């Protein structure tokens, strides 16, 4: 048992942290990034490609770093600290997570790693809520190609992505676990309509309507793959939450030290001190659970993996919700303003709670499994 990072991991953490503090240290810059055409900074994306971050999970033969869950944890934590708006989760964690395992798309992998192509995962459907296997979109074979019909929603960064990964049913009923295929789709293809929009936390997403859109099959019976990548996304979100929680906690504690009321810093009041102390406890517990998620996502038993990741998402979700709300309350009125940073961290933490299943959904899964795996 050890918690040490390797030299390579330490270098990675240093460079990502430097990137985040250089480009996101001044919170005003984030507004400018969001105002760019794609809702994020093209220059930041190129810089991430140059740093090797976009090829992080790819094997060395594929031109990547062979980075695993620990590397992902380091990057996502930094992304959380800076409230980074670039589509790292969408393109690298989800997109490459699916694409590199489905196989057969070596050129595309290289383009993504180089920063030339972005990806999005169009999987969510309105009726499915948090159930990954609930898919109504259909795929029927037509010669070498497949034809997709259906509607996908809240595809993260789906508005600007150069390629979409789409789940669709090749067989079975809406809630069957079998018969879900994974497809690669060029959004310029006839029959694809995208409606892009901003999300509450300052990122972007899209509704995607598919009407006879022609796509390439990447993997048949892809639900196990989708579940694995969703668990990796949960581990990534837990790490992102830890970074955001830590920053928001520090911001709050600094404010308690400087804000004067009744002739003294409000941090001298014990009622506020105790809530700040609880923020520290929450951050440390969340950090431990993010490490647990990173460890368990590598597990070979999918059922144990899923239960462990649900446990992590549930606890981190609960702690992030508590910490976010406390941060607003302890700041008082200033945190209600759009101009101040704290509210943006709160909003991101709140939305992290919804992504890939909320607290109730995940605790139900732990309960159904009879508790945590050994």
């Amino acid at each position, binding site marked *: 048992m050890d918690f040490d990072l390797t030299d390579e991991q330490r270098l990675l953490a240093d460079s990502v942290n430097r990137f985040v503090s250089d480009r996101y240290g001044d919170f005003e810059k984030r507004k400018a990034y969001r105002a760019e055409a794609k809702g994020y900074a093209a220059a930041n994306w190129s810089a991430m490609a140059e740093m090797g971050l976009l090829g992080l999970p790819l094997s060395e033969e594929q031109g990547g770093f062979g980075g695993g869950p620990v590397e992902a944890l380091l990057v996502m934590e930094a992304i959380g600290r800076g409230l980074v708006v670039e589509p790292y989760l969408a393109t690298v964690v989800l997109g490459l997570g699916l694409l590199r395992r489905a196989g057969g798309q070596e050129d595309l992998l290289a383009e993504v790693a180089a920063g030339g192509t972005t990806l999005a995962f169009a999987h969510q459907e309105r009726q499915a809520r948090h159930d990954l296997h609930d898919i109504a979109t259909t795929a029927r074979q037509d010669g070498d190609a497949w034809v997709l019909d259906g509607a996908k929603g809240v595809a993260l960064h789906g508005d600007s992505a150069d390629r979409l990964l789409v789940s669709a049913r090749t067989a079975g009923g809406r809630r069957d676990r079998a018969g879900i295929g994974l497809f690669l789709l060029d959004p310029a293809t006839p029959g694809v309509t995208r409606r892009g929009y901003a999300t509450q936390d300052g990122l972007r997403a899209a509704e995607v309507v598919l009407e006879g859109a022609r796509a390439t099959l990447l993997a048949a019976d892809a639900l196990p793959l989708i579940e694995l990548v969703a668990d990796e996304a949960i581990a990534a979100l837990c790490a992102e939450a830890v970074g955001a929680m830590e920053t928001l906690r520090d911001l709050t504690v600094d404010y308690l030290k400087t804000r004067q009321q009744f002739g003294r810093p409000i941090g001298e009041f014990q009622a506020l001190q105790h809530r700040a102390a609880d923020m520290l406890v929450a951050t440390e517990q969340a950090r431990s659970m993010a490490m647990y998620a990173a460890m368990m996502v590598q597990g070979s038993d999918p059922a144990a993996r899923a239960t462990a990741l649900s*446990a992590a998402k549930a606890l981190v979700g609960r702690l992030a919700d508590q910490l976010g709300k406390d941060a607003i309350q302890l700041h008082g009125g200033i945190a209600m303003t759009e101009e101040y940073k704290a509210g943006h961290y709160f909003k991101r933490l709140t939305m992290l709670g919804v992504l890939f299943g909320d607290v109730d959904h995940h605790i139900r899964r732990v309960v159904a499994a009879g508790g945590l795996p050994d």
Partner: protein
Amino acid sequence: MDLRYTADEIAFRDELRAFFRREIPAEIRRKVSEGRKLSREDIVTTQRVLHAHGLSVPNWPVEWGGKDWTPVQRYIFSEEIQAAAVPQPLSFNVNMVGPVIATFGNAAQKQRFLPPTANLDIWWAQGFSEPGAGSDLASLKTTARREGDEFVVNGQKTWTTLGQYADWIFCLVRTDPNARKKQEGISFLLIDMKTPGITVRPIITIDGGHEVNEVFFDEVKVPAENLVGELNKGWDYAKFLLSNERIGIARIGLTKERLARVKRLAQETPAGEGTVWDDPDFRRRLAWSEIELKALEITQMRVVAAQRTRAADKPDPSSSILKIKGSEIQQQATQLLMEVAGPYAMPRPDRDEDGANLPSVGPEWADAAAPLFFNYRKVSIYGGSNEIQRNIIAKAFLGL
């Protein structure tokens, strides 16, 4: 970063597991598992078995019977002894006075006290808290005035855990009433409980148990050679002593064992058409406790790992985190157990001092459920209440 144990660590763990189950009487372990009262004999027997195998004081210096273990090995020992429901070596001896004597005592004191302390030939009690000095320990009033070769002690200690069994008591006493700061006039004194002038009175707690006592000192004469370290430096030794409680304070192994037992009993206890286990609300609360415990377990592992690199005297928020969350989850576990008992948490059959001579009204295990719940309200109060822990976090780590 790897949260799994190495092959060597697994071998070490498995050896301990087998040892605990082989060498410690099953009846004693059953009592611990069920949260029943242990007799003095149970605790003494266990510690002597451990001592005979060189395992009673692993945290002491090697020359006094300690082990040259890594932090991870120490952690494994602490977790496994709890998970096996083995009574832990008496904390007053092993974690408190022993290390203080080994670190600050003189050669004669080490020779005289350490071997019998390790083997539990001397049973120590802790004389810190007073009626007017709880969380604000430094305001203690018990005095020791020097007269020739003796100190004469007057005052009262309270919450003296298992003081009814004690042979000796280590006390914080005020030796300089005029010190500039209240922390500066305190000394650390070892007192034989058989000395004339000492009176022990039981305090019966809300669970009906006799675990704690009041100890009164009326002109108690203590040889000056029983002063540990320097005069008026007792507060430093007390701080050292309290910081030694860090490993194991969260009692994760024990709570794990208790939650597993809650699960088992919930599956056996009828409710409606099925069992208590079929109630999703109950299972949901149990799941939350398990999850919080998992997070705390990893937090504890991080603390253990950091011990290799952290300066020993540097304050560390982790012991406060472990205290707060560990006590909360311990309390949750006792509440869940009581809920499994349902209506049969209610009967309180008359019992003699040592327990189970009369038949239970409901299932036998259910007798102890409510008393354990009541008793465990203590864990968020003692050892620096959870509110004191939040003060510590706020002041020492957040700089508020």
